[in-house]
């Protein structure tokens, strides 16, 4: 029971990170039907930006009173900078190819992925770099299980961001423009929606959420390295497909479910991560073959 509960909490924590990355995949796919293969590396860059800001502010040694505003500041600045990176990538690598055959931007996406990893390798080297965990330590004892306070924070931060995103998409004028653009670009333009700006905003938000995921990953695993985005990106992509690519709620749900699956498989079977990967990518293939619309794929007919 205790082991089950532990794996569940681990799964939800990892799931929170996957979900934050998956949102970027799904939002970008929803609006321009591009699988942004660079998104995993955007996540890594976000984590590194966070680490740099933490060092600049000296937050590892900050007194508790300054820690909370400091961490919030790190999140806000890293998310903004990473958002701008996403916007720049879209502008340079995807927008010029918007009317090109589908394969072209897909190839540039893979290219951007390699470029980002290469730059991170050159700047940060090949080794794992330690990352301070600035979340509160300790654990809550529930009798049948004990839950790390840090894990609770991670799950809450992720859920908070997801709820904020969902409100933004559903309730605001810009969110409505994003959905309109995703559904029918010409019709959206007839309403007065600026497509370029709306797509840029989508990249900004997706990359900002990935940065939050990157920082949380650093806190959780207390390490970061240049190649982190590859596997985590693919797993998050699987989560997005599993939830129904293009669907924001689906990506969040898919992230948590995939996180839980990974940690249960990894915890209960010998061979840990290898088995997890086998299972996760089998899920990817099965979903693509048997239910390409995923859990919450678009089901309303377009007459």
């Amino acid at each position, binding site marked *: 029971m205790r082991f089950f509960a532990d794996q569940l909490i681990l799964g939800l924590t990892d799931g929170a990170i996957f979900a934050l990355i998956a949102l970027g995949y799904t939002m970008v796919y929803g609006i321009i039907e591009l699988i942004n293969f660079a998104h995993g590396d955007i996540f890594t860059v976000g984590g590194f930006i966070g680490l740099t800001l933490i060092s600049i502010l000296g937050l590892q040694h900050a007194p508790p009173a300054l820690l909370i505003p400091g961490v919030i500041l790190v999140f806000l600045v890293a998310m903004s900078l990473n958002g701008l990176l996403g916007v720049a990538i879209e502008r340079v690598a995807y927008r010029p190819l918007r009317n090109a055959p589908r394969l072209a931007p897909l190839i540039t996406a893979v290219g951007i992925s390699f470029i980002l990893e290469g730059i991170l390798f050159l700047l940060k080297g090949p080794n794992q770099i330690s990352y301070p965990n600035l979340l509160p330590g300790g654990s809550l004892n529930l009798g049948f299980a004990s839950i790390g306070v840090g894990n609770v924070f991670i799950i809450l931060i992720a859920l908070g961001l997801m709820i904020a995103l969902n409100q933004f998409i559903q309730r605001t*004028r810009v969110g*409505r*423009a994003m*959905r*309109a653009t995703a*559904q*029918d670009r*010409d*019709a*959206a*333009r*007839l*309403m*007065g*929606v*600026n*497509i370029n700006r709306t797509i840029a905003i989508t990249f900004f938000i997706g990359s900002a959420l990935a940065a939050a995921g990157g920082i949380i990953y650093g806190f959780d695993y207390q390490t970061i390295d240049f190649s982190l985005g590859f596997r985590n990106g693919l797993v998050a992509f699987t989560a997005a497909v599993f939830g129904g690519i293009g669907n924001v709620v689906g990506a969040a749900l898919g992230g948590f479910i995939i996180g839980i699956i990974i940690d249960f498989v990894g915890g209960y079977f010998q061979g840990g991560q290898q088995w997890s990967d086998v299972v996760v990518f089998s899920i990817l293939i099965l979903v693509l073959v048997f239910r390409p619309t995923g859990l919450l794929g*678009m089901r*309303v*007919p*377009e*007459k």
Partner: protein
Amino acid sequence: MGVLLEVDQIDVFYGRIQALRGVSLHVDEGEIVTLIGANGAGKTTTLRAISGLTPASSGSIRIRGQDITRTQAEDIVTKGIGHAPEGRRIFARMSVRENLDLGAYIRRDGETRSDMERIYTLFPRLKERQAQLAGTLSGGEQQMLCIGRAMMSRPKVLLLDEPSLGLAPLMVDTIFQVIREINAEGTTILLIEQNALKALGVAARGYVLETGRIVKEGPSKQLMESPDVQKAYLGI
């Protein structure tokens, strides 16, 4: 009354295919004008050129004298052009109300609520279904929503692309009735129709488009009496 919309000698290409050749037309303030023609004549292309979705490669388009030939589609709606496009193109995965809200996307004044009520008065069916996803509406209801959505920007001129296509006769009558009402309340209308008889019935003037060229124009009455038009479009 003065000229509201002026299309002057425009050419439009899809890649290397030329869809319009020197098309000119004008719509005066308060008029209903119709553009008729066979499948593939270039009617939809004309409207897409006006609203900027398929820009003209030469010639010019003006609204109240202001040149909009090179203006982006998303800015043209702010010049007072509302477009209810071919195939309706409503946002299927949004509610009726959200579709209407998007119609008012460019507006910053606080009066969109009363405009929405006006749309609901024109189309009571939409009011009953305001919370329903637009993709689940019937074809006729979707056409109502398409027109209502375009009206929410408070256009000076409304471009209607085959609003009666695929609708049952009773629904066609409803749509034409609404076109009259909208016009009576002051909105100028450029109407495309396959149903030439109905279109000429509601319009003051008409243009006939054939393979990308205007081949005939004049008051509706005169077009209806023209033997060519009767033979080709009225089935007489």
